[in-house]
């Protein structure tokens, strides 16, 4: 009887574990302990996929950045604009074969504009989102890449 009870209990544990993962996409979320979990609450500017690397990313913006990107074709973001690019590895959607959804978080890159000509990049990488110190050239390339994304059309 005892032998039967323990596997039974384990199954129950596994099942509850699964059902939780089924309701939330936990692996793709940011825990409060990262201090940057609020980046996921910005407005969406656009999203992208890299089929070779099997990653997907969403570009978020604060109100100033979003207002600007949705109304202007150039990419000269005004002072106070903040853009956050969150990149995930992709995983299959268990509810829909034919879709990939965010898996593990890979990186968070935050661009802040002090003026249209001056921006800084803060970069976190890996599952634990460790703060990186990108060299000057990388920072310039990434700021340009992130800032040059077009806002997705929303009628």
């Amino acid at each position, binding site marked *: 009887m005892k032998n039967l009870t323990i596997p039974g209990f384990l199954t129950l544990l596994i099942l509850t574990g699964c059902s939780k993962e089924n309701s939330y996409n936990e692996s793709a979320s940011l825990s*409060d302990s990262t201090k940057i979990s609020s980046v996921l609450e910005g*407005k969406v500017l656009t999203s992208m996929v890299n089929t070779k690397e099997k990653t997907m990313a969403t570009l978020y913006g604060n109100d100033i950045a979003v207002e600007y990107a949705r109304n202007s074709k150039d990419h000269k973001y005004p002072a106070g604009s903040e853009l956050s690019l969150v990149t995930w590895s992709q995983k299959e959607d268990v*509810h829909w074969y034919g879709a990939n959804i965010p898996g593990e978080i890979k990186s968070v890159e935050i661009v802040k504009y002090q003026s249209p000509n001056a921006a800084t990049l803060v970069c976190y990488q890996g599952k634990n989102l460790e703060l990186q110190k990108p060299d000057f050239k990388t920072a310039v390339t990434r700021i340009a890449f992130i800032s040059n994304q077009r806002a997705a059309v929303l009628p």
Partner: protein
Amino acid sequence: MHSQNFVTKHKFLITGVLLAAVIGIQFVRPGIENPPVTENIIAPHDVQVILKKACYDCHSNETQLLWFDKIAPASWMVAKDVKDARHVLNFSHWDSLAPGDQKAKLFEAFNQISLGAMPLKQYAALHREAKLSAAEILILKSYITSLVSFKTSDTSLVNAANHQYDEWTGTKSAKVKPAPNGIEYIPDFKNWKAISTSDRFDNGTMRVIVANDIAVKAIKENHINPWPNGATFAKIAWDELIDSTGKVQTGAFKQVEFMIKDDNKYQKTAGWGWARWKGMQLTPYGKNETFTQECINCHRPVKDNDFVFTMPLHLQPK
């Protein structure tokens, strides 16, 4: 005492009446006819065999009923099921669907099967052959996967996206007509929070799912099954633009779809108000309010998830 006497006395009469009724209803036949097949689905032989065995009794004009399907009142239910099933998907009129819609139907059918929503439980219980084995499901999966193309987007798709973007930047949206079920367009969805993204390689679209404040609060407070009344989602879809290095960006805007939770107001439609607007003109989808049946049918495999496919990001309370 009196009634028991009645039963004993008229035992034969009662049996006779019941028997007559059972025989009588056999003449009330809704009738399942097999209209001509215009064009069957063209697929590899092993796929055809599986579809014929598991799906064709309801989803084609080649319905083959077993003897017990033909006895009323069961036959009435069978007739209704077959009629509904043919309306949703009919492999005998495959040519009536555009190639993109054929692929979409196959992916939907596959997901209904793999999530256990199809074949219907009551049908599978009596028709064992309709239940697919893991090996058969794999054959279907590899077939539909072979239909997906990952090639670089052609210039017309890129040009369409560029043109749309140029026209759009800086313009304000015009008045939008309500959906046929009376649901009004909600322009504010552009400012809602994202709860997931979906790279739909089955139909070449990128999707972002956003949620209103009530839904976001429910996420933060772990009350998402069932979702509270007022929780509203918008699923926004764009063409995917794939470049030669395999990088994908959002292209032309395709549509936006809403789910509005209200288990009183939308009791008849699974507790949700459903609506879809297509293209830059935001044309409401559906000829009449029965379009919601399509939405519910597709979402039925996730009914235990309050009909919601999306597994939201776990946004944090602050």
